[in-house]
């Protein structure tokens, strides 16, 4: 008599969900303009067919399968299908260039690759011969692939068809597959997620099944997610955020994942789906706010007035109402009217009408930006997480939310601050190590099993963690003042006109910064002020743009001056870079984080110019176009001074030594 098996793998949850939520939607995908829906029982059917098809292709236990592409049902099914056979899915960033992808596939030793479309298949084919382990490639969309040699290249539908045929010929195989799933062990590796890595090669984070399930159960309970919830699955498949928030939480809670039609239709698809659980990095909220602001600036005067008026009402009462704090009746009435006139329609346009829980993480978020969305009645919170933790380290509780902290430890997570200020944690979902890199694993583990996050932070009086920077990036100016570059950069980036900033100052006399303007926001300003420009470069160098940015830097300095810890490192000089920082040029990671040391190398001359007192500098820079070709751009970059508050002005050049 079979015992009730422990629910310690995702495929076990698949079987359970097909039973308990059989007729409820598990997956939707907009295709040919229509939302196609799969219930949990149909999803089980699709996954089983693919798993059996893989078996027919010679899949064996322990095989690793790369998953490459955008958020498509079939790619998500691949995860569960591979897990159901005791294999390990290895999602890979779809926008990785062939070289990066080859490294990951080779390092992981993948045997199969499931790719979305021709673009990805081309990449895989370009290096297939160099990776001995990689035998077969399966693709989802056949467009453009019809005439490719079929050797070791398979259509997803055909693999499934083979699986279905095998099942029809011998129904026992279906039962055997289910037995296999039930026999699966929580100690099996569930997935390997390659970090995008701010420095060096990416590492394969190995996550085991039972730990992953446990972590997901904790947060699902924490936010009360159920099978009635739904999410829009639009985050990169290979990122821990997507795998955790959508896949892992979806399987344990049974909610519905909705795959957008394409990357460009995400906003429309979101409007149509109206998810109840939502995650977006701060920059997404920022661009949403920018687009709302721009639309409002084009609106009629009455509408503008209405907008300003009700946003003011929301600012006053919105967060209090959201947190169920006492609010005067007049405030409630004004807010209710505002909800009818503005917040409701606005949330509807943004696809946020149904949101119960929303998170942001990955970067610091501006207090104004954060409050704006919360004041509309959206329960936006912050979390702090890591791939190594299988996401959650901290999370804010409903009603206890602040913009400048990331919340207390998530359920069952222990946190401790090391002497050097580094945040250490131990969590239920934590990884079992970096794949084939025991030395690196040892580096991040403490003797008592805590994991070093590499981030510096401290606990505030209310028990919420505040992250200030990467631990290794925190440095000191020559006079000993603390220099936390990211903290300064974030202060600058809270201005909508500033898209990216890179601060320098460790071991220097003063702090200085590179700035990237936001082409949408500044471009819009230029349009309204009849300033013609042909390129980013031209706009970036415009004197009036410099004036605007100087104002922002001044304001950031004023705010820095108010914080005793940070007041020493105000931005004394800055320049606006002649090109946008770009992941294709290696300046940003694939998750759009600044690669500081790379930038310091690449723009060494400009940094020197910041510190030697020059007012402009001629530079030539190599750039990579979207199609992979390289070119050079050159520019004379102006360097400007900024006002510093609360301390004597410094020389704007370092003393010659």
């Amino acid at each position: 008599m079979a015992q009730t098996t422990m629910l310690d793998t995702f495929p076990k949850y698949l079987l359970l969900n097909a039973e308990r939520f059989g007729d409820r939607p598990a997956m939707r995908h907009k295709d040919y303009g229509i939302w196609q829906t799969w219930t949990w029982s149909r999803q089980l059917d699709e996954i089983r067919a693919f798993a059996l098809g893989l078996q027919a292709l010679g899949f064996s236990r322990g095989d690793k399968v790369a998953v490459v592409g955008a958020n498509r049902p079939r790619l998500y099914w691949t995860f569960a299908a591979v897990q159901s056979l005791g294999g390990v899915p290895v999602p890979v960033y779809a926008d990785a260039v062939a070289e990066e992808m080859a490294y990951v596939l080779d390092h992981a030793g993948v045997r199969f690759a499931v790719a979305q479309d021709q673009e990805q298949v081309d990449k895989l084919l370009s290096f297939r011969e160099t990776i001995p382990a990689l035998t077969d490639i399966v693709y989802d969309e056949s467009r453009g692939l019809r005439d490719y040699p079929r050797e070791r290249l398979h259509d997803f539908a055909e693999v499934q068809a083979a699986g279905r045929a095998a099942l029809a010929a011998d129904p026992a195989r279906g039962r055997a597959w289910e037995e296999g799933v039930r026999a699966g062990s929580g100690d099996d590796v569930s997935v390997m997620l390659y970090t995008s890595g701010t420095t060096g090669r990416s590492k394969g984070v190995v996550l085991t099944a039972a730990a992953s399930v446990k972590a997901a159960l904790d947060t699902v309970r924490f936010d009360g997610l159920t099978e009635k919830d739904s999410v829009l699955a639009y985050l990169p498949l290979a990122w821990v955020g997507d795998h955790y928030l959508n896949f892992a939480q979806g399987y344990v809670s049974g909610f519905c994942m909705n795959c957008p039609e394409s990357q460009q239709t995400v906003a429309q698809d979101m409007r149509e789906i109206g998810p109840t659980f939502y995650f977006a990095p701060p920059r997404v909220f920022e661009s949403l706010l920018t687009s709302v602001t721009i639309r409002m600036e084009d609106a009629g005067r009455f509408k503008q007035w209405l907008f300003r008026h009700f946003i003011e009402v929301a600012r006053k009462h919105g967060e209090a109402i959201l947190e169920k704090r006492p609010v005067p009746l007049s405030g409630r009435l004004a807010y209710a009217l505002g909800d009818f006139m503005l917040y409701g329609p606005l949330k509807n346009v943004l696809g946020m009408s149904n949101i119960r829980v929303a998170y942001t993480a990955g970067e610091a978020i501006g207090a104004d930006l954060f409050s704006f969305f919360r004041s509309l009645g959206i329960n936006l919170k912050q979390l702090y997480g890591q791939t190594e933790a299988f996401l959650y380290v901290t999370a804010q509780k409903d009603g206890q939310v602040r913009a400048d902290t990331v919340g207390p430890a998530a359920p069952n997570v222990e946190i401790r601050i090391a002497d050097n200020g580094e945040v250490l944690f131990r969590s239920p979902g934590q990884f079992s190590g970096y794949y084939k890199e025991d030395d690196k694993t040892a580096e991040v583990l403490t003797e008592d099993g805590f994991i070093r996050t590499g981030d510096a932070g401290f606990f505030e009086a209310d028990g919420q963690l505040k992250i200030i920077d990467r631990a290794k990036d925190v440095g000191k100016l020559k006079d000993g003042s603390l220099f936390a570059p990211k903290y300064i950069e974030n202060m600058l980036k809270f201005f909508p006109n500033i898209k990216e900033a890179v601060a320098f100052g460790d071991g220097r006399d003063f702090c200085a910064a590179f700035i990237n303007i936001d082409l949408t926001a500044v471009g819009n300003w230029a349009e309204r002020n009849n300033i013609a420009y042909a390129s980013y470069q031209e706009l970036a160098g415009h004197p009036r743009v410099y004036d605007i940015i100087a104002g922002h830097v001044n304001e950031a300095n004023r705010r820095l001056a108010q914080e005793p810890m940070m007041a020493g490192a105000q931005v004394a000089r800055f320049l606006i870079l002649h090109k946008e920082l770009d992941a294709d040029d290696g300046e940003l990671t694939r998750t759009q984080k600044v690669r500081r040391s790379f930038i310091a190398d690449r723009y060494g001359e400009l940094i020197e110019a910041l510190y030697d007192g020059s007012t402009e500098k001629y530079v030539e820079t190599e750039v990579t176009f979207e199609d992979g070709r390289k070119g050079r751009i050159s520019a004379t970059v102006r360097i400007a001074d900024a006002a510093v508050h609360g301390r004597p002005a410094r020389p704007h050049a370092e003393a010659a030594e």
Partner: protein
Amino acid sequence: MNAHPAIGPALGQPDASDDGIAKGEVLLKVDNVSLSFGGVKAITDISFDVRKGEIRAIIGPNGAGKTSMLNVVNGFYTPQQGTITFRGVERRAMKPHHAVRQGIARTFQNVALFKGMTTLENIMAGRSVHMHRNVFWQMLWHGPALKEEIEHREKVEEIIDFLEIEHIRRTPVGKLPYGLQKRVELGRALAMEPSLLLLDEPMAGMNLEEKEDMSRFIIDVNQQRGTTIALIEHDMGVVMDLSDRVVVLDYGKKIADGPPDEVKNDQAVIDAYLGVAH
């Protein structure tokens, strides 16, 4: 580079245009055509053919008579001399909408779209040739008419998917940037499922990236849908990569005809493009 080696007809996906002409046979034949406007000769005694399944380019410097040639083929102009044979039938004077019905679709150099309508409506308009239910059925608006509408919508959605314009499905095309308008126009022409697709300077006014996108779409249309394409281009580079055979016009006369590599090295062509005096 020959962008697409000879590839057999689409497996599994039948050629959209069922015109009874086998691949490689002559689909359109232009014989000794001359056209003049009140004494000004636009085209003089031009002959060439387009074979089923190929990408045929008509190139030449500005004012060479390329667009006039296209307008003759699709019935905007009736030539004073010469004959045009399409799908084996010699054609008399005809109107553009007859050409459409015979299976010739085209795009325009300066984009002719229904600017007030959405992308979807524009491409649906391309289906109108294939709609059969009459006014009264449509007014009753159910049964067969609805079913037909759904079938057309499916075809249109395939095209939208093909051209990757899902995100602008409901946007009025007047608001779209030029490169996307060109794509929508191509979509509308595709919706007609033509035997012969005429493209009038499909890359005009585009930046490099848009040109590459458009080239890819043209090749995909040709390979995957099996559509025969005749295109006019001013930009030699693009054409040479795309087409199977090239006709070169200059001052309304044909000066060369052949595969791209051959044409590229033809002295007359080089002279014409360099502007050597005649």
